[in-house]
């Protein structure tokens, strides 16, 4: 009899544990913590490279210690305002500090379509943000002018080719609806590709899954060339970021992140925004397509390239 009661107890415990495991959803949990580069190691992990054809008259090197240890959160109202007077941003959206010699050159590549008001806010915010980081940068906006579904990855490929031709050693692939909130989130490349937007307000400041490589990403031009860029086949939303991650994984390139409080971003809401795009079936054979689909198979018609005061505008027909 006692034996029977014990059996029953064990059974109940088992049932409770199984229910708990099922309810805790080991497969679908977001994370608030992950491994990241500690603040004091950031400076050592950055690639100090400058664009080939960049020259400056400044003698002293810029110091980035203060930038990385700056805790200020930028107010979003910057995006609604205007640029400061005498901002010294050159035609094509290029800027470099004059008082010192920058140690990082970065091309910011923004795939874009239709949302003009959002782009304006983004450009003003980014220029105000990046000027304070004492880096040499240039903003490329790649616009898809045809009426096919939006192809984010292909636009990024086009923009990164243009940036590499201009000699930029570091690329930041950036969505137009993301605004960086922390000044310490330096827009330069680390040794490993870096997922910069891992704490977005829209996602409750959590990381939806560990291998997410979306939103704002920094990668050195060499590495981007090595993995053959991104896939050109993802029309419509979603999957292209996971595809890029697969490529990095296949080349044994790990990714890095900064700590959550540094990586905070604000996502500007806009109409018809998809929360979580569905996984594409293209992803299944991402590894096989890697060598034949990417920068080396890029075909498009360039409609125009215009140097605007705040950005280089590349208009393409895919």
């Amino acid at each position, binding site marked *: 009899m006692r034996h029977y009661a014990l059996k029953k107890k064990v059974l109940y415990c088992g049932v409770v544990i199984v229910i708990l495991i099922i309810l805790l*959803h080991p497969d679908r949990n*977001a994370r608030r913590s992950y491994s990241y580069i500690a603040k004091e190691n950031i400076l050592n992990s950055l690639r100090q490279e400058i664009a080939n054809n960049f020259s400056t008259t400044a003698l002293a090197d810029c110091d980035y210690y203060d930038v990385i240890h700056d805790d200020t959160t930028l107010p979003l109202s910057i995006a609604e305002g205007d640029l400061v007077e005498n901002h010294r941003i050159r035609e094509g959206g290029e800027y470099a500090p004059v008082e010192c010699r920058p140690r990082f050159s970065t091309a910011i590549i923004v795939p874009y379509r239709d949302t003009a008001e959002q782009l304006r806010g983004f450009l003003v915010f980014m220029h105000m943000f990046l000027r304070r980081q004492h880096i040499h940068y240039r903003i490329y906006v790649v616009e898809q002018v045809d009426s096919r579904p939006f192809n984010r990855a292909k636009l990024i490929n086009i923009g990164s080719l243009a940036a590499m031709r201009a000699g930029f050693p570091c690329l930041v692939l950036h969505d137009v609806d993301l605004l960086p909130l922390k000044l310490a989130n330096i827009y330069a490349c680390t040794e490993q590709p870096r997922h910069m937007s891992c704490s977005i307000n829209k996602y409750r400041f*959590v990381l939806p899954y560990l291998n997410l490589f979306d939103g704002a990403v920094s990668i050195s031009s060499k590495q981007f060339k090595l993995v053959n860029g991104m896939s050109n086949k993802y029309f419509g939303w979603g999957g292209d970021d996971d595809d890029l991650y697969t490529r990095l994984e296949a080349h044994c390139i790990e990714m890095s992140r900064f700590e959550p409080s540094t990586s905070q971003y604000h996502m500007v809401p806009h109409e018809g925004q998809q929360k979580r795009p569905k996984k594409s079936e293209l992803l299944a054979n991402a590894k096989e397509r890697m060598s034949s689909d990417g920068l080396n198979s890029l075909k498009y018609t360039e409609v125009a390239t215009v140097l605007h005061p705040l950005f280089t505008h590349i208009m393409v027909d895919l």
Partner: protein
Amino acid sequence: MDILPYGPKLSKKVDMSAVLPFVILPLLLVIATISRSVTIVVMIFIGMGAMYAQSRPRQKNRSQFFYSWTLSSGVCMFLVFELGVLRLLEITQLENLVFLLLLASTCYFFYKMRAVADFELSTGNSKGKEYSPVLTSDSYYCQICQLEVNERFFHSIWWDCCVLRPNYSYFLAGQVFAFATLLYGTNLGLTTVCQPFIFYETILMPEDCTDVYYDFNLAICFVACVYGLGYVLVTTLVLIRQLLIYIPKYSEPKWRKIVNVLTV
């Protein structure tokens, strides 16, 4: 052996009024996902229905319908949270665990409340001890429980049991935990489906919920959260009522004891 003795016969026995809420409520919630105005209409409809039921004389509300409604609400909201909200990959394991613990406590206290009431009903201990055999002006006879119920305590149609002195503390604890569970769950759900903002640098609060109706999954999570907020309102009212009326009365003798000790 006796779980399923005669399948067809058993289903005949099942009270229709006890099953109906499990059909009506999910249906209403799904209908409410159509658009913002439909959500508002459905919520007002449910609220008015609840108010009508509450305003009817107690003796008339004998059916199992209301208790089933409570259960159905709990099950629906729980399923939406576990299957809908978690699918959006924005809830951490810790948050889910805290939610489950709160929910488990709520269930435990309400289960205890009903179990104690059942026990009282069968043994009838409280009749002799706590209540006078004669109906005083303070008491009335509860038709459903077939017990004399003091004005301090009452019959709850939503739990289909009498809340008496022995199970009053379970009732109160259950309400407090239900309040916490609902508040926490709706906050998690709404901050997931909506654009959140940081409130006083610590708490995440929902801000902009305009684009939830584009996707069914987002819409059902949103609707369930709005429904949950309705429950938060109800539990708040119940708790305020307890604070104002029942707790002072219930704890009066204890207070008097303490005061007596102090004065001596």
